[in-house]
């Protein structure tokens, strides 16, 4: 099936090697432990395995069967047919890291296009070929800032509005390091704006991390924060949802030094949490501090414009224990998905989908805040997600509506103590007016318990 050897092939190969049996190749291995009996289910054929997996998948109710307003870091967007048609080309998905540029120009030029589009979208100068996801991209920003100041500015301020999983990931990454995390340990209230972080900045601060939109969906203007951060000699990192950038100001305009993000919105399926795409962009002056792969333009010996992995001396396989990150394999195919998605939509399509999300979310917020007992938590501008205060614990409401095949949003009480009555609602172009009206009716019905 997947091994083409016939008995004749095998015998001829053994003769060439000069042994009688395949087992003779394993004589260096501890004899007592060789050839264990693995307790695995018996092999299936392709027909049978497809049936089994379809049966397993039946036990899931997906965003296509339920009406879902669940976001909180992963969003149900439409991925045009072109995206998967390109991803399924074996020339792309069965290649690896383009170490040999003469026979990898497809991957390299696609990375270069990706770098160009993400840099343009975020308003930054340079972008790497990707990190694992939105969470690890923030962790790498923390890492980069720490090394940028050679450990002399170990304090990192995390806004409580940064996704809880991202902050947890940063904590895991920095647990055994000298980095000191602050900001989300009660120093500022969850509903405070970015200016509340300013008093926490001191001369040991290396990085301030905020989100755009934040976890609660709010859009802040970071101009004032950026000025304060830079005045103190620190760096500002903004974590984005890239669909937002089809409509709203690029974080580069606020003065961000690093922009990270979760690229899943850009044509990548939800797929129960991954694989997604970690965006990472920065200013030209920090390009050598940035981890991850980079494609650069050059020419070949025939005078043709061509692309090659460049600045590799920063990377783990050369710098070894002096490298700032160990990243090697990244999210190549997902970066390609985002590149195809952005190419196909272009400036008009991205603006269109961003506006659709915006209008539908605002319609939903208007309708819901019109129901007795429900209130929009913040009067700050928002994009496609917003926090609603409910008349009862949001977990109860959520569970009740789930029985009617409606996922009403994300109850935030587990992540934010004191927010047990709050529900985070995300709306995308996939939610029709009918869906929204049904959500509104459902919330109204359960409001009285």
């Amino acid at each position: 099936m997947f091994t083409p050897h016939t008995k004749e092939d095998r015998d001829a190969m053994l003769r060439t090697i000069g042994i009688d049996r395949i087992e003779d190749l394993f004589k260096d291995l501890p004899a007592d432990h060789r050839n264990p009996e693995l307790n695995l289910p018996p092999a299936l054929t392709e027909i049978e395995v497809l049936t089994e997996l379809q049966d397993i998948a039946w036990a899931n109710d997906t965003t296509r069967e339920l009406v879902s307003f669940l976001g909180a870091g992963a969003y149900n967007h439409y991925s045009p047919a072109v995206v998967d048609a390109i991803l399924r080309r074996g020339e792309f998905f069965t290649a690896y890291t383009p170490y040999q540029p003469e026979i990898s120009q497809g991957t390299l030029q696609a990375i270069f296009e990706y770098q160009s589009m993400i840099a343009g979208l975020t308003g930054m100068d340079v972008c790497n070929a990707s990190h694992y996801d939105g969470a690890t991209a923030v962790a790498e920003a923390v890492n980069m800032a720490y090394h940028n100041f050679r450990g002399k500015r170990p304090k990192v301020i995390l806004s409580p509005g940064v996704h809880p999983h991202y902050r947890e990931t940063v904590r895991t990454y920095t647990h055994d390091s000298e980095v000191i995390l602050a900001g989300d340990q009660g120093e500022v209230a969850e509903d405070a704006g970015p200016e509340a972080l300013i008093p926490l900045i001191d001369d040991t601060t290396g990085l301030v991390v905020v989100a755009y939109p934040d976890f609660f969906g709010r859009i802040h203007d970071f101009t004032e924060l950026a000025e304060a951060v830079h005045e103190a000699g620190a760096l500002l990192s903004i974590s984005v949802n890239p669909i937002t950038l089809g409509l709203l100001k690029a974080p580069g305009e606020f003065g961000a030094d690093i922009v990270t993000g979760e690229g899943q919105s850009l044509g990548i399926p939800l797929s129960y949490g991954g694989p997604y795409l970690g965006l990472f962009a920065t200013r030209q002056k920090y390009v050598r501090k940035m981890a991850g792969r980079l494609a650069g333009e050059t020419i070949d010996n025939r005078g043709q414009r061509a692309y090659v992995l460049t600045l590799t001396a920063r990377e783990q396989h050369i710098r070894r224990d002096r490298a700032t990150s160990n990243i090697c394999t990244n999210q190549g195919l997902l970066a390609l998905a985002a590149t195809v998605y952005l190419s196909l939509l272009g400036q008009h399509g991205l603006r269109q989908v961003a506006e659709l999300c915006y209008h539908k979310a605002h319609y939903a917020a208007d309708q819901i805040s019109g129901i007795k007992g429900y209130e929009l938590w913040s009067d700050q501008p928002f994009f496609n997600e917003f926090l609603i205060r409910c008349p009862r614990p949001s977990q109860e409401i959520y569970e009740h509506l789930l029985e009617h095949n409606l996922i009403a949003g994300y109850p935030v009480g587990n992540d934010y103590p004191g927010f047990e009555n709050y529900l985070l609602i995300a709306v995308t172009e996939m939610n029709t007016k009918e869906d929204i009206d049904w959500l509104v009716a459902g919330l109204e019905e359960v409001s009285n318990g």
Partner: protein
Amino acid sequence: MAEHLMCELSVPGRIGFQFPDPDVPTAPLPEGLLRDDLPLPELAEIDVVRYFTRLSQLNHSVDTGFYPLGSCTMKYNPKINEETARIQGFANLHPLQPIETSQGALALMYHLQLWLNEIGGFAGTSLQPAAGAHGELTGVLIIRAYHRSRGDTKRNKILIPDSAHGTNPATSAMSGLQVIELRSDERGNVDLEALREHCDDTLAGLMLTNPNTLGLFDENVEEVNRLVHEAGGLIYGDGANMNALLGIIRPGDIGIDVLHYNLHKTFSTPHGGGGPGSGPVSVTEELVEFLPDPVVDIVEPGDEEQGVPPLYGLVAPPQTVGRVKAFQGHFGMFVRAYTYIRMHGAEGLRNVSEYAVLNANYLLALLRDTYHIPYDRVCMHEFVAEGRWADAPDIHALDVAKRLMDFNFHPPTNYFPLIVHEALMIEPTETESKETLDAFANALIQIAEEARSDPEMLKSAPHTTPFGRLDEVKAAKELVLCCVPQYEKL
């Protein structure tokens, strides 16, 4: 022929994709927060499809030819994997959905955890790490958490043999450990004398790549593990080379405490032009409580007699090192690896490793007389040759690699491991036929002859590829990392 960039192909007014008009009343946009430029191209659908299809044709890939890139396990990726991962019930599942609505996904992850435990000889597995290097980081954090939980705080050094994978030193440094490199002995094993010098109460552990990057199984592995354990350290196993060991030996049975798998190597999930990977981590019983948050477990037992399945849920291990990324991991890769393991069973997996090792030893036998093999003994799934000859002084491994492209072969890994001069690290994998291996060996033998008779043929290679050698110095010096398009404002 070089392809234009999209910013050069863009024509104002072209539309590639149309969304429906809003079906709700529109809301006022937030003036003052809107952007006035959006630097993206304007292309029709056919422009985009042709552009990326043509780009794809500039790539060498497993689907188009042999790809013996050492240490990367570029085996054939079954097409059925791509079908199962795209089943609607998997592809459109939100990671934060309530567990009652995602029992299928959780059951799949639960069984994959069990199977990886079984294959590696371990007690617990986290599927969360995103790639091999990410799994390494997770494993080293687990080792640190273990020592800390015992109040053993002075263990700050980690030993890494010089034949280990390239990511190992960077990983350890990221987790705040002092890295000490261990030399290999003349047979390519960890040098036991060097190891003994460092076995003291500051030892956190040792990172063992076995088979190592020379493609050799460490003959002293049990002694290495015993010495480290006696000193109170733990053994991290770099499982990137598990393709040699499936059903042959279980790392957990011979003293490895933590191991990461590369689903994108051993279990046939595609390499994607650089990723995504997937790097699950398996551990022994005493380390299960430190695994990253979350793992999948049964939260309510079922009743087999009544036909009631258990309820699966996401659980945080009691002393977890924490999350290493958002959500549950690269689920799409779990579906592919599940498909692959399910289609092989125990016997099929053993065959995978047997044929991977057979193919490597067959190639080694064909090439031994032509290429110097610095550590010449029975290899596992890969081996390292030298791309240099005394009577061809100007020829380097790089020239051999570039010339191979003219035969439609992807070159082996070059210049790694660092302990071999002019290294060519060759990993054929089990999915290649005898004919392919013969053709590859013949090409390498012809190239070795050309190295003496016509060195210029190698120096100026490749000749038949769409691109010739690139000016890497220019790329690093001028550092053009983006095209700067002149699009019209919105």
